[in-house]
């Protein structure tokens, strides 16, 4: 026999069945549900605001944390290199003026 039930009907049947369970079984089910919900909250990477500050639960291994720190340090190095490259380019005004005012035209020094 193949009976098709709607979600609501299934819900009603489950509620009726649940009411027939004894108190201790219901308590165990309730406890198990609470534990499952608690585990789900801990496993989810969530960030919540409490008192204006960020508090979070993020499941990351020590290895992952190390990689994050390595990434930040590498970014700092790249930023610093870029900065010094800019500074290096900026500090050439002496020689640039010399080239631009020399007897020889600029073309003589350009490939």
């Amino acid at each position, binding site marked *: 026999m193949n009976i098709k039930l709607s979600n609501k009907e299934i819900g009603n049947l489950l509620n009726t069945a649940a009411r027939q369970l004894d108190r201790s079984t219901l308590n165990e089910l309730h406890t198990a549900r609470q534990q499952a919900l608690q585990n789900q909250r801990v496993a989810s990477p969530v960030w919540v605001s409490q008192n204006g500050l960020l508090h979070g639960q993020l499941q990351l291994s020590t290895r992952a944390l190390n990689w994050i720190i390595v990434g*930040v340090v590498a970014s700092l190095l790249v930023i610093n290199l870029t*900065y010094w490259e800019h500074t290096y*380019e*900026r500090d*050439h005004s002496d020689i640039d003026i010399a*080239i631009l*005012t020399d007897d020889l035209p600029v073309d*003589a020094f350009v490939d």
Partner: protein
Amino acid sequence: MPALLRNCLVALFFAAACLPMSAHAKPWETLNAQQKEALAPLSGTWSSLSEQQQTNFLAYAQRYPKLNAQQQQRLHSRLEAWSKLTPEQRKRAREKYKAYKKLPAEKREAVKKMVREREAASGVPATPPQ
């Protein structure tokens, strides 16, 4: 975890503090009279120059009053072409100029002679008359 978050924020703050202080592009109208005089050949293309280039050229402008009339004339005649070179071309030009300056005087004269002969052959003198 808050400790890690705090450390990351400190590191990011440090990274931001290390960023080069970018000189904001200055419109031509905001340059003073001396800067405008020194950089006059760039008046038409000033707004198209990068902030870095503008900073470089403003450094030239600072030295402009100390140049003699001939040097000022040469600077004016070469400034636009110089601004159109790529950073790599300018870097190579500096290297070649340094090497040229290290040559003995007679070799430098030989190079000058060669360049002038080349200019004469092409019919377009690139160097203003001395």
